[in-house]
């Protein structure tokens, strides 16, 4: 049994690197990623699990980092948008499809798409894509372009 009380050094595996952070058990992962590791790609939006701007990938599945304690992340593989490297298939597809305006939601959508590509290497049926994308909100309403980016990610978009 592991028990933490007060500020504790946690060892997290983020974007393939072992990192140490000093956190309280009640600190949510999003704040620790941003404030201690400088990984500001996970955006604070609603902080309530609704908007998806803080989405990261945990062990291959999408996860809203505002609804996960940092202490829970020990022993798991965390990927943030910084871990995609800048030229991943998802990122290129978003650029090609102009799938953003202000860009605040983009990192969250990218992480959902990254997890989707991990779990569904072949393009899943339309309903699955819809369900995954419905976890995130875009206040600029770029939904049509984001959908197009997903198609391009799977090599079936308009210019593919």
């Amino acid at each position: 049994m592991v028990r933490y009380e007060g500020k504790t050094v946690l060892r997290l595996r983020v974007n393939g690197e072992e990192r140490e952070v000093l956190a309280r058990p009640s600190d949510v992962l999003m704040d620790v990623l941003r404030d201690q590791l400088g990984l500001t790609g996970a955006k604070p939006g609603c902080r309530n699990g609704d908007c998806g701007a803080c989405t990261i990938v945990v062990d291959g599945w999408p996860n809203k980092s505002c609804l996960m304690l940092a202490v829970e992340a020990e022993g798991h593989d965390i990927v943030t948008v910084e871990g995609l490297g800048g030229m991943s298939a998802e990122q290129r597809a978003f650029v090609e499809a102009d799938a953003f305006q202000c860009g605040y939601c983009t990192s969250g959508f990218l992480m959902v798409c990254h997890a989707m590509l991990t779990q569904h290497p072949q393009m899943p049926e339309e309903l699955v894509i819809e369900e995954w994308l419905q976890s995130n909100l875009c206040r600029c309403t770029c939904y049509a372009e984001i959908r197009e980016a997903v198609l391009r990610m799977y090599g079936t978009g308009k210019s593919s």
Partner: protein
Amino acid sequence: MIPFGFAYCRAQTLAEAVAEYARCMALGKTALYYAGGSEIITMARAGDIRPDEVIDVKDIVECRGMERDELGLSIGAACTLNQIKEAKLFPLLGLACGRIADHTNQCRITLGGNLSGSIIYHEAALPLLLCDAEASLFGPEGERRVPFADVFQGRLRPLPGEMLVRVRAPVWALAAKHAHIKKTTNEKIDYPLVNVTALFYGEALRAAFSGVCAQPFRSERMEAILNERALCPAERARLAVAALPERAHADVEGSGEYRAFVLEHTLKKLLEDWELGSL
């Protein structure tokens, strides 16, 4: 940010979790069993709860995984809604889990969390009520197995210090004809205005509801009316709504009258589909 601190304990065994809970109680502290944590984090951030400690049960082997055998399906309380949906072992429960919150949150919310939380809808409970599922709980007195309906009255009601470990659905329910109809006021992802979940035991329709009243329920009286096949679907639907166990729930999503109206038409359509053999 959660504006206060609490201790975090990650238990490896049921005995460890229950002992830690008891230790907190003995010290006059409040402890919560913790799995997905989405509701606990949300409520703590808003100041609605202030636990001294959370006891994470996700690593406990007995709370994890799904096991199918010739008698039925056993599901760990720490299984996520998405795991249950993707497993496709209990299709009706999978449908219910797939309409709770959004997909990303389904990867986080656990079955135990949905059944235990303070949000009134508990939609994952409906298939379990309909199939006469069994619940396995572990507490200071050890393990006990009881009919799920005995510990789920409006929400999961374990004894002090007890935690849900697994639920077990009988084999007939895993392949039974079923229907899951969730009506929301606006968006697809929302709390239910009306959720009608139906499971057929042979040719008898069983039905449970969420969103209709202040808590989810299964009503034998309503089921008897819905199965009165001498009456037309419209009449059965009207009589069933008149037999609601309490007044229809009213809130910002919809008035009680509106909920009753939507329920009646949903039931009528369900019964018509049943008669047409299109379920």
